[in-house]
């Protein structure tokens, strides 16, 4: 025992760590390879290490010049050309060139890479989808390095949001030399080359990532924080305890059970997110194949009380599917109206809830989903006189049931947009779309969305609104419940440059100690 103790002490002495200026609690173990990143935790770290043509603006999360100093859109909107700054370098001092972007694009689209976020460039770049499906060659993909400082993208349709999109990890450059030298190990400390404001100093999987300021970063004089430690713990209570004890400066994500206490803190930050929590109907199933039943169920939920008393975390109760966006008027489904709900249910053949079959709400196990389901169950009982049962399951089983077997009548669902445009929400309900779990199918709707791709500006928004109204106002294809809110704990009187943002991306680059 004594020997063992001595050993521990010796080891503990060897592993001494330098002090960090800033400590973050990230909520999950990140992936550091931009090509393979899929979640917020990875992007949080990645924003420090890498930089795309555009970078996320710290306030709006729209694109702001990153590696590119400027870009140009062709008159038809189908070609976007970026001019790279000559001062942008990798951490070994070599220039970041147009070729790095082409290489990264090839890598993420290559079927052999198996990158999940390949679908994002595949959606907008010409020929990308075909290459990713293995049907076309890379030479047909719409990306071209014209010279070292010019890269040109050809798009499938006019996508006004494309330049902003290049701030996303799926478009970041990747250092070919390191990838080819080290293979999957290229992101390990010592092997990795980064082009962002920070270097990877240390990576203890399942523990933390340690970032250190990159002296070769083109804008390094504006990078204030010298080193950043990012914890990977996914235990909300522990993270919060660490935060309260001053062991963490920024905590991302908050547990529902602590919200009553956290809500009153002055360092509690919320911001509306581009995303909607909703109850998904399988519209092919009785009795929710009847639009009157769907509307009755939707009108019988008091969402304001739900948000005030149950979720409490700054979410915005809503009757709309698309969250508020500049230039777009989100269409509305039916609002809370118990009288109307009763009438609709009676019209559908179930007066006072009589003979209404016992439906089941399925949700994946989580304290928040559970509380919401329990609340809605009671609402439907009180306002419609119908009984529903609740069934929780483990996440993957739930996904299989909801997304693959579609073996449900009502299921909890949520969607968070990838970029700031109504398309990120509305594409979901096209016939056969991979995320159209409720099996909504209307050729007219599909046609409107397709038409919108050819239109521009206000006309385009108008077509999208038409589709929105068709799906929601006319058909009530699901019940929107609330728009998500980002929830963070960070003392903004101590830390500057951190803003509550719509996509939830925060760049360490702009942050500083006040």
């Amino acid at each position, binding site marked *: 025992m004594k020997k063992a103790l001595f050993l521990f002490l010796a080891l503990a002495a060897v592993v001494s760590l330098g002090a960090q200026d800033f400590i973050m609690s990230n909520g999950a173990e990140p992936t550091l390879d931009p090509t393979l990143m899929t979640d917020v935790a990875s992007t949080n770290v990645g924003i420090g290490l890498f930089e795309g043509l555009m970078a996320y603006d710290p306030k709006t999360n729209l694109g702001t010049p990153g590696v590119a100093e400027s870009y140009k859109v062709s008159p038809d909107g189908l070609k976007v050309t970026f001019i790279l700054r000559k001062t942008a370098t990798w951490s070994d001092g070599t220039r970041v060139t147009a070729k790095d972007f082409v290489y990264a694009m090839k890598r993420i689209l290559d079927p052999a890479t198996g990158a999940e976020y390949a679908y994002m460039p595949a959606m907008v770049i010409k020929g990308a989808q075909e290459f990713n499906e293995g049907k076309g060659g890379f030479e047909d993909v719409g990306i071209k390095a014209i010279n070292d400082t010019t890269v040109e993208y050809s798009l499938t349709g006019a996508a006004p949001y494309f330049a902003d999109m290049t701030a996303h990890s799926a478009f970041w450059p990747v250092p070919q030399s390191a990838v080819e030298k080290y293979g999957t190990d290229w992101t390990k400390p010592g092997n990795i080359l980064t082009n962002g404001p920070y270097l990877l100093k240390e990576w203890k999987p399942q523990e933390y990532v340690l970032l250190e300021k990159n002296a070769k970063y083109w804008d390094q004089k504006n990078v204030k924080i010298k080193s950043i430690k990012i914890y990977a713990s996914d235990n909300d*209570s522990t993270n919060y305890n660490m935060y309260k004890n001053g062991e963490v400066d920024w905590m991302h994500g908050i547990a529902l059970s*602590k919200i009553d206490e956290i809500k009153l803190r002055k360092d509690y930050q919320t911001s509306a997110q581009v995303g909607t929590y909703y109850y998904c109907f399988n519209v092919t199933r009785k009795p929710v194949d009847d639009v009157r039943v769907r509307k009755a169920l939707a009108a019988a939920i008091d969402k304001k009380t739900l948000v005030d008393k149950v979720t409490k975390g700054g979410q915005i109760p809503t009757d709309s599917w698309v969250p508020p966006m500049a230039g777009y008027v989100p269409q509305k489904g039916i609002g809370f109206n118990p009288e109307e709900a009763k009438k609709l249910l009676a019209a559908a053949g179930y007066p006072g809830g009589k003979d209404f079959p016992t439906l089941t709400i399925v949700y994946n*196990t989580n304290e928040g989903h559970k509380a919401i389901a*329990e609340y809605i169950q009671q609402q439907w009982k009180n306002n419609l006189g119908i009984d529903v049962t609740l*069934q*929780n*399951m483990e996440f993957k089983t739930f996904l299989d049931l909801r997304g693959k077997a579609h073996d449900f*009548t009502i299921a909890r669902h949520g969607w968070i947009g990838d970029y700031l445009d109504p398309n990120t929400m509305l594409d979901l309900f096209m016939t056969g779309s991979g995320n159209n779990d409720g099996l909504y199918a209307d050729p007219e709707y599909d046609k409107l969305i397709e038409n919108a791709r050819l239109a521009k500006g206000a006309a385009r928004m108008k077509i999208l609104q038409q589709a929105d109204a068709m799906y929601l106002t006319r058909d009530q294809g699901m019940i929107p419940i609330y728009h998500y809110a980002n929830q963070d704990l960070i003392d903004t009187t101590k830390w500057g440059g951190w803003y509550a943002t719509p996509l939830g991306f925060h760049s360490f680059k702009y942050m500083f100690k006040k």
Partner: protein
Amino acid sequence: MSLERNQVINEFNQQVKPVSLWADAWKRLRRNKMALIGLWIVAVFAVLTLMAPMLPIYSNTEQEMKHINLPPSFKNAGQVALETLQRKANQINAMIANEGRDDLKPELEKVMAEYELIKAEINVNPVHKRVYLMGTDYLGRDMLSRTIYGGRISMLIGFIGTITAVFIGIIIGAIAGYIGGRLDDFLMRFVDIMYGLPYMLVVIILMAMFRKEGQSSVIILFVAIAMVSWLTIARVVRGQIISLKNAEFVEAARSMGASSARIIFRHLLPNTLGVIIVFSTLSLPGFIMSESFLSFLGLGVSAPDASWGTLVSEGVQSMELFPWRLLVPACVMTIFLFAMNFLGDGLRDALDPQSKNRA
């Protein structure tokens, strides 16, 4: 005799009736004060949970949004709600005054609006006349009632889990230990394999195969628990039997021509009873808590019903703000487990073959 002894092992959780030969053991049990108290507590728990629908308590599932997270009190709910809101308003006021937290003003208004609302209807709305002796939960449901109803599934799991575990464990363990050789090897390797399989995925598969929409999954829950619960007991019983099977009294029985079954049940098992009973009472809490793990996978009672396990795991999340949500179910559960434990000890002493000769 072997048969009766067997029966009592099976029924040790229930009342041991003074059946002829067991009158003796019963007499000894009655003299053990702690065991008797334990027996009474278990009986009271059983009766209370079974009669829950007839008890004068509030519904365990009905929500009252105006009574969220109220502390335990003898006062009327309306009064408690007002006090709670008042406290909160004071807290916010202090923060606004001391820390200049003007951002909290909308929150304060919300609290005050609700305060006024309840104040206005406190004498009109009958729900405010309720008394929540054990407080309420995050949806304004009565904790007392939730805990009583929660005992149903938890106690059932405890009993059934223990009985199946002990039953299968004894049989497998005794056979493996007594017969030994290849059979022992085979059975013990089987136990190893059962330990080795990824239990969580086995349960997920069970659940996916046998669950039906809208149906309760309590049976699958029992199967899931029974599947692995006997493993440890089997190994322990086997170990005991191996160490006893060459003892003099067994040799004596064998030389008198006793059958293997008779030797196992009449001579060997009674001598390992102490350890078996201790193991059973030790496993009981494990079963009750494993229900809360399995309910994570969707087995067992589904919301809005709860079990002790789920109540405790919910309560611990918010124990700093609403300690009663942890303490009420946790204390009730611990009292029950204490009672079972003392009852188990008493049974062990009462059934001890050696103390029988001394009594």
